[in-house]
């Protein structure tokens, strides 16, 4: 029996091996990687940030929820941005554990997706959002909102609307930033403000807007977002770990809140 244990342990060593230090260098030169892969940042979902805010304190998530109704709009860029903000609202409602709000947001996602011909891609997700909210399975609802964002973007990319898909991500990021700064400015901490340190993401969005087709690039909302990115960049610092001041948090909040309102109103 002892022999079997020893053989088992040896097999374990062979099949589950911590990676040796020499296999991967402790320091690498990132400039040797193609710029495209290094510059294309994976866009986080608002839920990733909200989870940290929960750990830092007990935000009053209900105070962060939007109550005003979203009016029907016809501009596709505005709809894509709105869709992003509404999905971000979904993450807020999950944190607030507000079942009815989550279900209403699911319906809103469906309505906006229909307006840009990607309804089919999110029907199953939206049904699941409702079901999981009824069952109060908040982690599953969070996963479904991430899935809805992913599916909508994938459907747009299939329709060769990659630029519009980016606007959905941008809308989500703007609304996520509004909520993040609102929570942090109510109870400022260095760690809370550190969540705003997203230089790679800001550069990515900025460059991505530059490569959009001219019609979208010249859209007043998109132009305004790009200007906002330029103003936020110096406020979040270049260096990792640099303190972001309370005043900077306030300024970023003001800009992002105005932007979310502009996306809603279309001006």
């Amino acid at each position, binding site marked *: 029996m002892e022999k079997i244990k020893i053989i088992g342990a040896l097999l374990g060593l062979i*099949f*589950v*091996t*911590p*990676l040796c230090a020499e*296999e*991967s*260098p*402790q*320091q*690498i*030169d*990132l400039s040797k*990687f*193609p710029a495209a*892969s*290094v*510059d*294309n*940042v*994976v*866009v*986080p*979902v608002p*839920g*990733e*940030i909200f*989870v*940290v805010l929960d*750990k*830092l304190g007990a935000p009053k998530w209900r105070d962060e929820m939007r109550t005003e109704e979203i009016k029907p709009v016809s501009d596709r860029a505005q709809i894509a941005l709105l869709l992003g903000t509404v999905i971000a609202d979904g993450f807020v409602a999950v944190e607030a554990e507000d079942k009815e709000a989550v279900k209403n947001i699911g319906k809103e996602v469906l309505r906006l997706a229909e307006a840009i011909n990607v309804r089919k891609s999110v029907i199953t997700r939206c049904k699941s959002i409702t079901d999981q909210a009824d069952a109060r399975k908040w*982690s599953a609802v*969070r*996963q479904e909102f*991430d*899935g809805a*964002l*992913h*599916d909508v973007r994938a459907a747009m990319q299939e329709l060769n609307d990659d630029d519009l898909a980016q606007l959905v991500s941008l809308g989500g990021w703007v609304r996520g930033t509004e909520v993040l700064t609102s929570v942090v400015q109510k109870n400022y901490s260095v*760690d809370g403000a*550190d*969540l*705003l*340190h*997203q*230089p*790679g*993401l800001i550069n*990515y969005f900025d460059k991505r807007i530059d490569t959009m087709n001219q019609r979208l690039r010249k859209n007043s909302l998109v132009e305004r977002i790009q200007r906002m990115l330029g103003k936020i960049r110096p406020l979040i610092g270049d260096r*990792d*770990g640099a303190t972001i001041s309370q005043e900077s948090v306030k300024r970023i909040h003001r800009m992002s809140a105005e932007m979310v309102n502009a996306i809603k109103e279309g001006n």
Partner: protein
Amino acid sequence: MNSSKRNLFKFALICLGALAFNAQASVDDALSFAHEAAHPYVKQGYVVREDAWGGDLGVKDQQAVSVQLFKGNEYWFWGASDTKAAVLSVRIYDSTGKMVDADSWQKGRFAATRVVPKHSGNYFAIVTIVKSPVERTHWALVYGYR
């Protein structure tokens, strides 16, 4: 175009189509394996992101995936290949190029790394095909947070 040329053209098209389908299927397989590696962690409270990355690489080739991570979260990155005998590694570096892995493992075609960021900011997941019996190895990467 005469009949034999037309047939040759059709054959080439079919071959190209089959190659494209095979490549896609293989990345999808690699993705399924990456999700398989992630699955046990869901019970530990990790939310696995829907976004995933994949492609094919030669032996010793590397791919960088740029991600925004937040201080206060814990992350796991799970990589996998569709090639059974392939060995890949997944390591995480900060924006200065310094390795920041808190923990990592490698098991057959699977590899994973845990990160607990000291600061919020830009990080890089570097996928390397360490060994493989095939010229181009399909890989996929997913990550989760809690």
